[in-house]
């Protein structure tokens, strides 16, 4: 539907950002994301920065694991673990 990749903003000049994705750099338009600053990670689609990407939350995964922990094979158990976590 819409390929998009996260990239780090290196610099911005005149609403043109230089971004880097795994060492590969490209110019993208910052027109749709004026609030982004160098150092931010942004989601890039079709040459435009579309959104700021938050730091990946390790807690989130832990929460999921907790949610599933000790809940072997029954819905009730999972529910329980969620309410516990």
């Amino acid at each position, binding site marked *: *539907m*819409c390929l998009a990749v996260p990239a780090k903003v290196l610099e911005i000049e005149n609403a043109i950002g230089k971004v880097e994705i795994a060492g590969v750099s490209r110019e993208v338009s910052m027109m749709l994301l004026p609030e982004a600053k160098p150092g931010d990670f942004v989601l890039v689609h079709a040459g435009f920065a579309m959104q700021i990407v938050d730091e990946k939350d390790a807690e989130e995964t832990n929460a999921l694991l907790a949610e599933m922990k000790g809940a072997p094979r029954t819905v009730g158990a999972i529910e329980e673990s969620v309410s516990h976590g």
Partner: protein
Amino acid sequence: MDKKEERELAQRLVAEITALAETTGRKLRFMEVCGTHTVVIFRAGIRQLLPANVELVSGPGCPVCVTPDDYMDKAIAYAQHPEVIITTFGDMLKVPGTKSSLSEAKTNGADIRIVYSPLDSIQIAKDNPDKKVVFLAVGFETTAPTAAATVLAAEQQGVKNLFMLSAQKLVPPVMETLLNDAQVHVDGFILPGHVSVVTGTGIYEPIVQNYHVPGVVTGFEPLQILRALYRLVKQVAKGEAKVENEYEDVVRPEGNPVSQRITDTVYEAADTGWRGMGIVPLSGLKMRAEYAAFDIEQVMPLPVGELPPAKKTACRCGEVLRGIVTPQDCPLFGKACVPTHAIGPCMVSVEGVCAAWFKYGQGRFEYGK
């Protein structure tokens, strides 16, 4: 998380999905609306990991697939005009129109340039002042603001030979159309992650509430999809229907307001045709009157009669796109219709359901059986 931890988490999620699905005592059908999700599901082999009673069906989320013949015919007709240079995403190149494709037009000498960004069209327009550069503006809510921003940039830079041939589409109206369709049965939606980056999550609420069907926004890692499936099965198991967001690092409830405003400046909602679904009210975007000077159809309308009459084939793309049939139900699948000689757009596009079935071996592959 390292790869091993990822694999373990995936196994864990699959186990949970299997267990939860079992508690429902019935067959569950979830639709991924977004074609990129479709591809990840096939590439990662997710279907093979799921229990027999959890079925994934693909929806109308491939922009190439839902674009009807008449748009392609128009694009081809413009491409053949000696004064026109077409710029397009690579995806559109092989999509069949009634009689031909852009790829064929290019082989016959039409000037068609593949761009990574609609903005690239501006430079091409500047380099070719004696030509009309026409960008094929297709896509969903994610892509529409990039086309709109390109129009605004061209206007600002005084570029007068860049135009749009627009066929942008909106997701929520077509989801509703599907839910109203008696042939379609869906127990929940994997909601498109990148559309939601622009729109936010709120737009799905009315649908989820009105039709009591769960929806989870998620990203494009296999694990994210498994997580969304886990949430969907869980909602069903609990009898709930709500919008959840498993892609919180980029999807905000309010989306991207600047993108929404820029799209709204250049475009307005309009009825539009979808392959296999006909006209869906207010499901597309058309250029506002203020931007008519950038609309190739207004600046240089094609002479009447330049488009060929509609064709009839046994292609069942229309039904495939609604999740009513699978590609294997199409008599042409894998026989007359293969990726090298596609009959319908669902076989052409990388995100096309038929292409994904074929490419990733569904129904023809021995491994993993």
